[in-house]
């Protein structure tokens, strides 16, 4: 092994440190200022949890948060189911009719500008005469996030050793049983990661939700966006801190769980 060549140079360390500082500093500042006692976001007036209390008394904001939470749970669950099925078909189904179209439809939404996806889904809902609100946003989010789930699960499936499945079948399992007994348990960490990714993406989405929601059913990002347009408010800092905290807890739990569940000590990266 070329240890000498693999050695880190000062340049490597600086690039890494600066890069990580750039990624984290704004978030840290946002969190610190959410505990600011002053109404002026820029003046530091001591620590306080005032803005958190303010948020918990803000009916409209709480409604939006509850709406986002429900949309997130339902759409992430549906997306995980559909995305996992898609990943299994793509990585284990060999060739089938319409495969190219299928994988194309699954990869396109990953990069498709959200304004296009949002607009096209809205026009579909209008044509179907669907009442816009919880269900239309949920369906829209399911469509977007199942593609991310499919990618995450498919990456895991391609990395799995297929001889395990084949061994199970040699030992007399039919394919479905071999899948359930052998493949599925090995896929579970990636399925869990897929669910969480779908949930956070749904919780985060502003553009598609704006297009597909109806009057009176704003999601949290829609409410935050309309507040942010009016300027910085400490209450928004508090909400953002709560969201960041929630997501951090979920990610840490997930990475610990995947570390425990992977027997070989390999880390199942979320993406």
């Amino acid at each position, binding site marked *: 092994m070329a240890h000498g060549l693999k050695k880190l140079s000062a340049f490597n360390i600086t690039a890494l440190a600066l890069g990580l500082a750039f990624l984290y500093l704004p978030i840290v500042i946002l969190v610190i200022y959410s505990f600011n006692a002053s109404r002026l976001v820029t003046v530091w007036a001591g620590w306080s949890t005032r803005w958190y209390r303010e948020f918990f008394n803000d009916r409209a904001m709480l409604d939006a948060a509850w709406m986002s939470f429900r949309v997130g749970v339902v759409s992430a669950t549906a997306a995980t189911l559909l995305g996992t099925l898609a990943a299994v078909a793509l990585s284990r189904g060999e060739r089938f009719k319409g495969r190219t179209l299928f994988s194309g439809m699954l990869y396109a939404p990953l990069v498709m500008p959200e304004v*296009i*996806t949002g607009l096209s889904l809205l026009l579909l809902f209008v044509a179907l005469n669907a009442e816009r609100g919880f269900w239309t946003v949920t369906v829209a989010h399911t469509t977007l996030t199942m593609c991310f789930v499919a990618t995450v699960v498919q990456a895991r499936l391609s990395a799995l050793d297929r001889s395990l499945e084949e061994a199970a079948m040699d030992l007399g399992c039919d394919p479905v049983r071999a899948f359930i007994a052998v493949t599925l348990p090995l896929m579970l960490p990636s399925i869990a990661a897929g669910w969480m990714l779908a949930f956070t993406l749904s919780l985060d989405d502003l553009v598609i939700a704006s297009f597909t929601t109806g009057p009176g059913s704003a999601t949290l990002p829609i409410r935050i966006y309309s507040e942010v347009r009016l300027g910085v408010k400490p209450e928004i800092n508090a909400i953002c801190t709560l969201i960041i905290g929630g997501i951090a807890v979920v990610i840490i739990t997930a990475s610990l769980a995947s570390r425990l569940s992977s027997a070989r000590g390999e880390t199942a990266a*979320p993406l």
Partner: protein
Amino acid sequence: MRGVSKDGRWHLWPILRGSPPRRRAPQDDVRCWKGKTVSARRIFARPARFAAIAPYLWMLLFFLVPFGFVLKISLSQTAIAQPPYVPQFDLTQGWAAIQAALAELSLDNFKLLISDNLYVLSYLRSVVVAVISTAILLVIGYPIAYGMARLPRRWQSVAMMLVIVPFWTSFLIRIYAWINILQHDGLLNKTLLALHIVSAPVVWLSTDSAMYLGIVYSYLPFMILPLYATLAKMDPALLEAASDLGASRSKAFWLVTFPLSLPGVGAGVLLCFIPIVGEFVIPDLLAGSDSMMIGQTLWLEFFTNKDWPVASATAVVLLVLLLAPMLIYDRLQRRQLEAR
């Protein structure tokens, strides 16, 4: 680590050229008796194919079919009605009515897009912004990914986690975090004033620099991760060989490392470029209001002007513009996930 295969798996050209070179994994497996292995795969494939039915139908209905509606409404006219466009297709009215409605479709909206400077400039600005920000992202992201790939193995997964976590936290929150810093009496101006670098507060918000900063900040993980993925797979023996043959470190980098990382560069560039062209939130919150990107124009037409047909036409043109990069991306993605 298997390093670089001889068929040029990590080279960009096969991706652009056509079908990905498939690795013959099952037949290579010496532990299995050849005939048996192949048949097991085939048997397994049959029920696996059935798994495609539900997601296939879902994507057809909620992804492909909606584009038909976008196309149809882009050919319609605005009307003060619910929904706000004519003609409406009513299949119960019989064939004659449908024919009459078909005759009402026109290309007027597209003519408007071409003739009105507002739209042409929006498209141009979007592409220019996307090109510049993608270039900045590559220049910043490459050294970071390179540094990550050179960390000791157990630190690599930690570094990767650290890069991914901001990607999981809300997009909107990250933009909002920058508004906190960049506003008139925000932390940046305070720091600059305290250090006597500037004598009066600088306007940061509502400028193009703020927008570029926001874009680079939000998309950085999308650039780093594919770059890191290719750089981490690279066989260090190649660099050793280069140095044995007398190449300097920088020469080895430009002759060996960089060309081999091109697929990662391609994936990162496309993963950033395509969505940035249609970006709405970042320019809306951070850039000034004097010139708009096409995502903002579409949003304005739809939500403020309630002109659904023009918004749809804008989307159709945007989609056509992005078709080529999206096809290349699709090919890259397929190689990544299916050719293993």
